């Protein structure tokens, strides 16, 4: 009993951290451009594929992979913003950006299938092997994921709450017009936001790939991240992180009860939260903008 409990906790926490990375990315984008990103899961998959390309196909070392991946992610983030957000930012129809991200999701998914094929690929973990705690073997990759993800999330908090450039980004997100008047270059701040989001999510993909396989089916994880965002309260970074970790743990523990309906358990929980506490567990008190 204890054995499986420890194992489930470790895997739940690790996967929850990955959801948290995606959820943080989602919240940052919601704040910056006011829309949900439906391509988030595909960005995660892209991260996994880029890591596979750099580390397995090109055979780079760990440092080379990380640096190369971050460079590619940053460029791709700007590209993503230029195609999905910039042309439709003044569209009279507010759904336009959302629909563009759906289109981007299809494009990214199918391009990856065309480039790397539809066969699932394997990528070795960053730290191979496992450690023994209380007689339970736990893969080292779990600890790598938890550590790196916690570091990234801490960095995002620091950036957005404490540093000047984070405040600029928040200002540009809250009211673009006023921010422009104050002399804030909105184009650059939004581009940087997209770059950061792509880096966070891409690294998430690199981290999670060894646990599963590298294939386009990884994009299904975005629904869990979304559930985390809703459970934590919309637009709230801390809530999103806690909600996502909760989703990861619940999903993991749910294998005590059922394995076929794992997906359904998470979404039933989501529906319950929506019915009982529509603003989420840590809902913020900012009301709608007219």
């Amino acid at each position, binding site marked *: 009993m204890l054995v499986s409990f420890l194992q489930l906790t470790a895997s739940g926490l690790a996967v929850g951290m990955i959801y948290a990375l995606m959820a943080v990315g989602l919240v940052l984008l919601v704040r910056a451009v006011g*829309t*949900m990103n*439906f391509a988030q899961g595909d960005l995660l998959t892209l991260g996994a594929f880029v890591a596979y390309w750099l580390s397995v196909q090109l055979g780079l070392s760990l440092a080379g992979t990380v640096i190369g991946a971050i460079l590619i992610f940053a460029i791709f983030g700007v590209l993503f913003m230029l*195609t*999905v957000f910039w*042309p*439709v930012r003044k*569209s*009279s*129809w*507010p*759904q*336009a950006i*959302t*629909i*563009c991200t*759906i*289109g*981007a*999701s*299809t*494009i990214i*998914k*199918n*391009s990856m299938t*065309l480039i790397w094929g539809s066969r699932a690929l394997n990528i070795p973990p960053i730290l191979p092997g496992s450690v023994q705690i209380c007689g339970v073997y736990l893969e080292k990759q779990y600890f790598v994921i938890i550590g790196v993800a916690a570091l990234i999330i801490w960095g995002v908090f620091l950036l957005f709450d404490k540093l000047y450039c984070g405040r600029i980004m928040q200002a540009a997100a809250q009211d673009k017009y006023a921010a422009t008047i104050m002399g804030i270059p909105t184009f650059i701040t939004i581009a940087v936001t997209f770059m950061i989001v792509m880096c966070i999510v891409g690294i998430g993909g690199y981290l999670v790939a060894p646990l599963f396989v590298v294939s386009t089916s990884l994009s*299904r994880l975005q*629904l869990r991240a*979304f*559930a985390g*965002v*809703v459970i934590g309260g*919309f637009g709230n970074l801390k809530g999103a992180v806690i909600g996502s970790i909760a989703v990861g743990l619940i999903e993991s523990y749910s294998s005590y009860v059922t394995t*076929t*309906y794992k*997906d*359904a358990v998470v*979404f*039933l929980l*989501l*529906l319950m939260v*929506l*019915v009982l506490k*529509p603003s989420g567990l840590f809902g913020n008190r900012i009301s*709608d903008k*007219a």
Partner: protein
Amino acid sequence: MKKFKIGGSLILLVLALFLPQILTNYHLLVLNNTIIYFISALGICMLLGMCGQMSFSAVSFMGLAGFLTAQFSKTYHIHTLLAGVLAIVVTGLVANLIGKALMRLEGSYFTFASIGIVSIFSTLFLNWKWLCSSADGISGVPKLNLFFMTVKDRNQWYYVLLVAAICCGLFVERIRRTHLGRAAASVRDNAIVASTLGVDVYKTKVICFTIASTLAAVSGVMLVYHNSYAVESMFTYDMSVSFTLMVMLGGVNSTLGTLLGSFLMTLLPEALRSFQQYLRLLYGIGIILLMIFMPMGLAGVVESLTAKWRKHLKLKGKGRNNE
């Protein structure tokens, strides 16, 4: 203008009545599928175009209604028409409950949650033994019996579907001109203003969602009777994206536009068969280009062109008067 519209629809109707005489059996199958998808797309047209809520869950309700009909008519031997109606009613009730929960979410959060619904239902369609018998679905669903006739071949199906589609189309057009339609439009344009004018935003959204899901259920029942089998792969997320594309290509708030979009979206894969591999990639690029260049779809383009034309004619007429 009104005379022109009535005349145009009469010509279309006569053309539609004689269409099966010219088409081969295979083309008739494609056409029937188009009409079935059109009914489901109408629901999305209503929810997205009229009420401004983007949902991907249509496919789940299609599937639920489809599987229920198959079970009712095959396992429980209920009369086929009755089984269909029963399935539609049950699906409508389920949709109402789900809508009540989901409509607490705003805008794109709602859209995301509707994708969650799709994933829950596809798990159910694969694993719930009572509903789907096995992961391979249900085959050998009995033929639809309309009391006075049993719908057997594709030719007969075509006419049944045509009647159903016209009824659903007129129904949606009618709603557009009622209190509900105008309330929905106000919710779409500005929810806060709508609520100050006494529109119950939440209730309007839930009703629109229920009607849209019921339309999806109708099309699901038709699909299952038409193909006489039901399987999970008929009701996937990709399908839902196609429905949304149909509506957006034709024009989000136009019934005729939705019809045109359904035709284009079903016929395009037939025409582009040699590019099968790149098809979904092209769809994706198409969506983004559509949003950038014509966010209101083909109907929007036609509308702005006619408006320009009319202005042009008016200017010309004025010039002549002055001479």
